[in-house]
């Protein structure tokens, strides 16, 4: 207990304090406006404390490590949560009797994601994962007037529970083999492990990879993704696609590097197989989708496949820094772009009262002419996901490519190129619908200043990261 610890943990404490205040507010004075205000204030406080900690915090305890890597990702998660919180009030008010708890769950999920980015111990990994997961089940099922979210939540709950159990069993086997639970401790005993422990540790790593791959929706653990994406309320889908996946990837990367799992060729080969399968299967299945949310679900499978390349590249110590840099930039670019796409799908006037969400491709038809700002945001998001120059996605993909060419990863590079090629077809299909001159667009979005503000910010972020990525790159390089 010293001041360093309190400083390093202050962002987490700010958000935790926010949840307690929010609970009391809901208990004594239920008012959605207050709930939103408290949530945004505690997110703002958390972001401020992160920026205050920024230059060179390196606090390490048994469970958590607050370094530049964790700070950058925490800031990203807090901003994504703030965007979700900005988007949701009108959406939730239409679809649920009580909207206070939505923001409570959102804050809790954000805390879980932040813990994941800081975790250096199996216990904190599991704690963060479950905090994030349990809050997400409830968030997905939140709209109480339709069945689709409930179905999505039940599917996610059952499958995610099975994945967590697999993960836990993997940890138990790793503990049986090495007697360690901290990442660095695991790496030390892996180096000394005999052949008996080797079998146990390999079985453990397979189970751990399966569990984490499920949360990242990598092939062959991707079955839940389209149904959950489609059923979940759009703002929550955006949160799930960005914060949940980003946090799990962050802890996956840290565990992979700190436990020294990259020394084992079997693990590398299986990861390569998963990556290639995800890139190809994700892109191929997205081709025939007519629902934008399902399309984005399959595209997210492919994008997580692209990100896995980083794990294989950083197994070579010489390329480690470039690979982590690429991963961080890609995560930021992907988060901003995906949030932009889901912001358009959430656009409150665009949603029918109480009815199912309007997320078929035909509902987007002619959006660019009927509502230029929303249409432009969707257009830019699609181009960025496809990796067209002048958008954030292009720089991210370029980074991945340049990281991958540093080693003999030809198969992965080939899949990346083929996958991106296939991807252009379905992203441009959305763009084609946006550009159609169609008069049967019955649901005109009524843009308040609220939505327009957010759209402009997201548009500026996607284009800004694409045109002038130097400042973010410099930031990332300064923390590695």
């Amino acid at each position, binding site marked *: 207990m010293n001041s360093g610890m309190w400083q390093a943990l202050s962002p987490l404490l700010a958000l935790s304090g926010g949840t307690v205040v929010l*609970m009391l507010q*809901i*208990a*004594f004075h239920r*008012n959605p406006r207050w709930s939103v205000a408290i949530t945004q204030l505690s997110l703002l406080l958390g972001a401020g404390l992160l920026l205050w900690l920024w230059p060179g915090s390196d606090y390490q305890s048994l469970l958590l490590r607050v370094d530049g890597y964790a700070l950058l990702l925490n800031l990203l998660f807090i901003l994504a949560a703030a965007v979700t919180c900005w988007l949701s009030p009108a959406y939730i008010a239409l679809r649920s*009797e009580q909207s206070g708890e939505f923001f409570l769950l959102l804050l809790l999920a954000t805390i879980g994601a932040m813990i994941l980015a800081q975790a250096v111990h199996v216990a904190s990994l599991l704690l963060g994962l479950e905090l994030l997961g349990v809050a997400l089940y409830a968030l997905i099922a939140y709209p109480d007037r339709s069945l689709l979210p409930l179905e999505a939540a039940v599917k996610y709950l059952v499958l995610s529970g099975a994945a967590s159990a697999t993960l836990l069993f993997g940890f138990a086997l790793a503990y049986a083999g090495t007697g360690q639970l901290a990442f660095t401790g695991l790496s030390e005993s892996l180096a000394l492990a005999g052949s008996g422990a080797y079998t146990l540790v390999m079985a453990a790593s397979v189970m751990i990879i399966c569990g984490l791959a499920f949360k990242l929706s990598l092939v062959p653990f991707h079955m839940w993704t389209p149904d959950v994406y489609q059923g979940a309320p759009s703002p929550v889908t955006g949160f799930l696609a960005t914060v949940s996946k980003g946090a799990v990837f962050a802890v996956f990367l840290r565990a992979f590097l700190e436990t020294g799992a990259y020394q084992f060729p079997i693990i590398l080969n299986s990861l390569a197989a998963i990556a290639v399968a995800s890139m190809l299967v994700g892109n191929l299945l997205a081709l025939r989708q007519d629902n934008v949310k399902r399309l984005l679900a399959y595209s997210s499978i492919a994008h997580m496949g692209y990100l896995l390349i980083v794990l294989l590249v950083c197994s070579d110590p010489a390329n480690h820094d470039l690979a982590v840099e690429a991963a961080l930039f890609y995560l930021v670019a992907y988060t901003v772009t995906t949030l932009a796409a889901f912001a358009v799908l959430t656009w409150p006037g665009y949603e029918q009262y109480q009815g199912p969400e309007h997320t078929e491709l035909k509902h987007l038809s002619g959006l660019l002419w009927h509502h230029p700002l929303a249409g432009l945001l969707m257009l830019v998001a699609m181009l960025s996901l496809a990796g067209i120059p002048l958008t954030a996605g292009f720089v991210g993909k370029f980074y991945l490519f340049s990281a991958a060419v540093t080693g003999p990863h030809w198969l992965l590079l080939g899949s990346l190129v083929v996958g991106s090629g296939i991807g252009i077809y379905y992203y441009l299909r959305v763009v084609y619908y946006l550009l159609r001159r169609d008069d049967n667009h019955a649901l005109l979005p009524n843009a308040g200043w609220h939505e327009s503000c957010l759209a402009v910010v997201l548009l500026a972020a996607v284009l800004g990261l694409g045109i002038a990525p130097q400042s973010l790159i410099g930031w990332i390089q300064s923390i590695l």
Partner: protein
Amino acid sequence: MSSEAALWPFIVYFLAVLALVATMLGLSWLLGQRRANQATNLPFESGVLSVGTPQIHFAVEFYLIAIFFVIFDLETVFIFAWAVAFFELGWEGFLAVGLFIFILTIALIYEWRSGALDWGQKTRTGWKPER
């Protein structure tokens, strides 16, 4: 290893249980008579005929109470772990547990105020019954 030696009796016991159950079921299957009457496949309820459907709707309050029990019961486990090491943890541990119980109290207040502890008619804050 000694742990394996200590495990042996359990393994034998487990196998013996399996063998016993298999013998009982197998022998009665081999030696017993088989009939296909109307009553053969009815569930045996000590001579009482079962009526109605097994899919009864329970009031949701039962589940709520069960969940509260699980939550607060688990939390006593944590407090118990602290109580065992009371003197070793000193003031630091006391403050940590104090914070833990404070958050628990807030959760209880939240449950109480949002009507989760009421049976039947809920009286939550700011909640208006539909039309």
